[in-house]
């Protein structure tokens, strides 16, 4: 209820019922609509309470944010640029409907790949490492899929002198060898997880198990907007710098806000970060792109929002890929960072509200987009990000010429080069899947 309504007393009928603003979530209990909450064993409840308390205090502490801001500037290299991708724009315009002159939005890339360590993940890990120290904890742990969050956690740990263990699925460690080496070089211990599907879900299970026995000395730096409250809120807040910068840069470079923002969604941290500041600007269309994998059959994709049902996984209620009994279903994506059967509870709420549209792009479409960006812009994107590029290019091609579309370029793709070479050679030996490298018209 708004203050003005309350002030008129209980007898006066309200002029209109004020909807709960999406940006006011979560409530005290960590709810985003019906989603979220904290479904955790009692062993973790005191650690989460401590984290809530520490974050509430930090949130109100000017010095905390000043320290973080300074670190983001001098250590991470923020603000990251908002870059006008002219040749990608030209390509999208060329692939639009023939005969129509001057169709196609300008495509801008929010360059999170230029943040230190090569992805947006560092925005969160530095903030959480600072929280760890406020709580007097000397060790941090993390789960990682693509290895970007693991590298970012190892980096923050090295910067602050904290001990660091990273859990990583054995299958992901194979796919992302470079990042495993980087983490070790940064002084972290990488623990390969051999249970279950040997990917991000299982790495998360192991990290939570570690934390159940170590919470008194250890902070768990969760890498996405998933997990029990307050993690989804904390991670979103630390990642919202992406959206705040994008907003200021858009006003400066475009003279207004963009018509559309596109981001990939696994757990959903880069998307939450860039979307959140724009939630109340309802003219800005927000599009989240999930991993469509090899197709719509269960087990072939990682599209929790598009194909999943509400359930409980890793401590919160959200859309989950699961069978009718609540058993988590296997997920698949060519990108290890999206290969997760759950998604952040706030995205589930945004989906149900209709504020954000969620869609999917397949492995093959992501591979095409990966190559497209390499050759049109000289930027090697992460395979995760490539899903957003695939969607963004197609959306832009159908938009008016004077409009602007922003793609969150969440990470760089050096880590993916081996895997892309392997996938492309597989595709070519199996008769090809239509991986055609469209050369930009020039």
């Amino acid at each position, binding site marked *: 209820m708004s203050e003005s309504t309350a002030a008129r007393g209980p007898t006066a009928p309200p002029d209109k019922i004020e909807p709960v603003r999406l940006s006011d979530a979560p409530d005290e209990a960590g709810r985003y609509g019906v989603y979220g909450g904290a479904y955790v064993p009692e062993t973790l409840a005191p650690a989460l309470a401590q984290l809530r308390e520490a974050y509430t205090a930090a949130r109100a502490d000017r010095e905390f944010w000043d320290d973080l801001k300074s670190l983001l500037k001098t250590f991470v290299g923020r603000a990251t640029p908002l870059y006008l991708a002219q040749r990608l724009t030209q390509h999208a315009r060329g692939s639009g409907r023939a005969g129509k002159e001057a169709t196609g939005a300008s495509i801008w890339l929010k360059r999170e790949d230029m943040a230190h360590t090569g992805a947006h993940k560092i925005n969160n890990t530095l903030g959480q490492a600072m929280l760890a120290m406020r709580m007097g904890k000397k060790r941090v742990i993390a789960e990682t899929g693509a290895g970007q969050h693991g590298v970012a956690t190892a980096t923050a740990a090295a910067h602050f002198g904290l001990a660091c263990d990273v859990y990583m699925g054995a299958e992901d460690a194979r796919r992302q060898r470079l990042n495993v080496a980087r983490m070790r070089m940064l002084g972290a211990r990488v623990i390969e997880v051999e249970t279950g599907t040997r990917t991000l879900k299982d790495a998360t299970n192991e990290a939570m198990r570690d934390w159940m026995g170590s919470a008194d000395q250890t902070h768990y730096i969760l890498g996405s907007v998933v997990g029990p409250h307050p993690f989804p809120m904390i991670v979103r807040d630390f990642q919202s710098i992406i959206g705040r910068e994008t907003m200021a840069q858009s006003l400066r470079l475009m003279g207004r806000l963009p018509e559309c923002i596109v981001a990939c969604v696994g757990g959903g941290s880069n998307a939450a970060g860039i979307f959140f500041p724009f939630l109340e600007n309802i003219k800005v269309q927000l599009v989240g792109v999930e991993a469509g994998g090899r197709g719509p059959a269960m087990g072939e994709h990682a599209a929790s929002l598009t194909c999943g049902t509400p359930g*409980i996984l890793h401590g919160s209620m959200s859309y989950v890929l699961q069978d009718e009994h609540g058993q988590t279903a296997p997920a698949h994506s060519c990108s290890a960072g999206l290969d997760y059967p759950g998604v952040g509870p706030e995205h589930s709420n945004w989906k149900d509200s209709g504020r954000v549209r969620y869609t999917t792009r397949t492995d093959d479409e992501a591979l095409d987009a990966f190559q497209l960006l390499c050759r049109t812009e000289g930027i090697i994107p992460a395979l995760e990000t490539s899903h957003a590029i695939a969607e963004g290019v197609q959306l832009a091609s159908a938009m008016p010429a004077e409009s602007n579309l922003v793609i969150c370029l969440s990470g760089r793709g050096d880590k993916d080069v081996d895997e892309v070479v392997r996938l492309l050679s597989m595709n070519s030996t199996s008769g090809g899947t239509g991986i055609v490298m469209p050369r930009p018209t020039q």
Partner: protein
Amino acid sequence: MPGRISTIFENARRENRRCLMPFICAGYPAQASLASIVKAVARGGASAVEIGFPYSDPVADGPVIASAMHDAIGRGVTPASVLEQVKAMRGDIEIGLIAMVSASILHPMGGLSNAPARLVEAGFDALIVPDIPLEESGPLLEGAARAGVEVCMLVGPATGRERATNIAKATTGFVYLLARAGVTGEQGRLDSVDLRVEQLKSVTQAPIAVGFGIATPEQVRQATAKADAAIVGSALVAHLSEAARRGEDVPVAAEALTRVLAGGLNHMGV
């Protein structure tokens, strides 16, 4: 009317006995039926048995129980099939039957407030939901009260005194006191829980059962020095797994180990 679990503990307290509550994973091992194992632990001296519903991502469980659950799921064990088996055996079973089930599995059974009725219908006397802490317990407790099933809530080593009091108040069955932090499974040494049990007893009349890491008769003895019951999970699951691997009779192995562990209850003489 007090539930079966409360009655079991009331009788035990009156007779100054302690109770043993083994945990078994439904559908594991494949070589024996759930009913045959439940009956075996009853013969071995169990007062109640916790039946674990296999879940794909049991984060509170260590490798022994997690891999038993994965094995059972892999062979097609579903929550519905567990409920059917319990329903079929209930008439032959005197001891308490407690469902140990994740919120993730309860949620698809019509939501957290409707799921307890499904468990009662099958014949369960109580339920433990290891991933529903006090803050999230509202719908579950409401549904359980409506269905007439007891809810046993957990108190951990880091749970503060005030919080533990609130948890004990919300509990309608026994309080499950975790002997240590971490996940289920044996860890050799068991630290004394006597002080924590006495603190709990000063704020609640509810029975107190101690679990996590109890594997030997001596540890059963130690855990029940002040508490009403000891819970043995991983040690029994591992024992049954080993028996099945050797081609031994699984219910016979279950009964034998239960009897050995129950030997640890006989320390009173007061």
